[in-house]
């Protein structure tokens, strides 16, 4: 059988506080080594099938790395189309979290029909941009955008999300009063969750030192990847000893609703969940704007030369980096650094948020909530070992 990757988080309690947190990961952070020997287009065609949660982001990071390495810049028309694909995956992933995972946190059943509506709407974007299906082609696929179908898909996702939240996400985040009214009086699972997380003992839980990921990634990212022959860096990344938080909170700490949550309770549980909501709303707005920038585009003539390239993409869960070395038109070396390795690092934001926490009743539940808020891309178990007991 093929082993399922998991994260196991163990909190050790001594003298009434979390004294120590260990993270055990069975994630296959080195599997991309086996792309060596394949053609670039074979790798980008394989990526969406082997990475189901973030397949689009994986392809786009792979394409950016391949195109930089081979001196094959994509045409200007590819940029808005690829950004739309990325945002559609972000909406689908955050929407899935809100429809499938958030209800369970407040004792409700998952809203699978809503999850399916959001996924179906966002899945319609790709064929409406690249009807011949060649979007994974290095240099860019054949673009024939159907703006009407894309606008309809965005509207369908917005409507499914509004039904799920019991309010329009963009409107409820527009001012603090609307947001407060929504979670205080709303009866959707998301509103109940946010109301629960607004209690002071939960709102600030998990606020460790906040080290947001720099916008283009750490300055030493390319050099560290290049030097990482054994794979230690892609398993436990850092930058001069700092382990950044990546994902919605790091990207959207400027957003008024997120900034208000951070101002009130610090960068804890509430701020991280509000950032997910704010991100889904801002993605839909950005998608509306991008529809007007779409244009036709033909694939370039292949012109692959040897070299190395780094592709960076902000995926739903955070910064995703692909690095490739090409030789003789084939992949010589391939590395992937995924956001979960930052957020669930043994010195990362999850562990910093848990270390020193008071071991009062419900610690295991709060720790699980923090893990959900940081949104790992694999299943995650949390256990508490109490030396005081």
């Amino acid at each position, binding site marked *: 059988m093929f082993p399922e990757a998991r994260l196991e988080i163990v909190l050790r309690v001594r003298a009434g506080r979390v004294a120590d947190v260990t993270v055990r990961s069975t*994630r*296959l952070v080195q*599997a991309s080594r086996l792309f060596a020997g394949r053609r670039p287009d074979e790798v980008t065609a394989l990526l969406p099938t082997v990475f189901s949660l973030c397949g689009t982001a994986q392809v786009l990071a792979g394409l950016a790395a391949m195109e930089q390495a081979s001196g094959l810049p994509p045409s200007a028309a590819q940029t808005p189309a690829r950004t739309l694909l990325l945002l559609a995956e972000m909406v689908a992933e955050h929407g*899935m979290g809100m429809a499938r995972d958030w209800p369970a946190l407040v004792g409700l059943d998952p809203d699978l029909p809503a999850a399916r509506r959001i996924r179906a709407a966002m899945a319609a974007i790709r064929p409406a941009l690249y009807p011949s299906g060649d979007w994974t082609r290095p240099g860019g696929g054949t673009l024939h955008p159907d703006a009407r179908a894309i606008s309809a898909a965005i509207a369908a996702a917005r409507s499914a999300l509004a039904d799920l939240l019991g309010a329009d996400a963009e409107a409820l985040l527009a001012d603090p009063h609307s947001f407060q009214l929504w979670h205080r009086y709303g009866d959707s699972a998301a509103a109940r969750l946010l109301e629960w997380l607004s209690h002071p003992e939960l709102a600030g839980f998990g606020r460790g030192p906040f080290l947001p990921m720099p916008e283009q990634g750490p300055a030493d990212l390319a050099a560290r990847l290049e030097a990482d022959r054994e794979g230690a860096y892609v398993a436990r990344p850092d930058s001069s000893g700092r382990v950044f938080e990546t994902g919605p909170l790091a990207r959207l700490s400027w957003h008024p609703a997120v900034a208000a949550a951070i101002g009130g309770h610090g960068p804890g549980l509430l701020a991280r969940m509000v950032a997910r909501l704010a991100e889904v709303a801002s993605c839909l707005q950005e998608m509306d704007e991008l529809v007007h920038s779409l244009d036709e585009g033909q694939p370039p003539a292949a012109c692959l030369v040897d070299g190395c390239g780094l592709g960076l993409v902000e995926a739903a869960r955070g910064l995703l980096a692909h690095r490739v070395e090409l030789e003789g038109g084939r992949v010589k070396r391939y590395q992937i650094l995924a956001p979960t390795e930052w957020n669930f690092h043994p010195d990362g934001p999850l562990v910093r948020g848990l270390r020193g926490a008071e071991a009062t009743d419900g610690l295991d539940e709060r720790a699980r909530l923090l893990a959900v808020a940081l949104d790992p891309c694999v299943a995650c178990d949390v256990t508490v070992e109490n030396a005081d007991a």
Partner: protein
Amino acid sequence: MCMAVPSRIVAIDGFTATVEAFGQQRQTSLMLLTEDAAVGDYVVLGAGGNFAAEIVPEDQAQEALAYLAQVLADGQA
């Protein structure tokens, strides 16, 4: 890595499918699929394996399975 293993549907009962990959069978929900699935289709499962995330064409699934077999044999898994 959050790797997905394409799994072949061997039986369907309502919204629950029995799927097989690498000689192991498991049950998964078809509730999140946006298209109808049939026995013989390949699906990739979301994290935790409780839900099938999407249907993938057989040639794509076979190529991914060949790569994943290589990952297993190489000891990366």
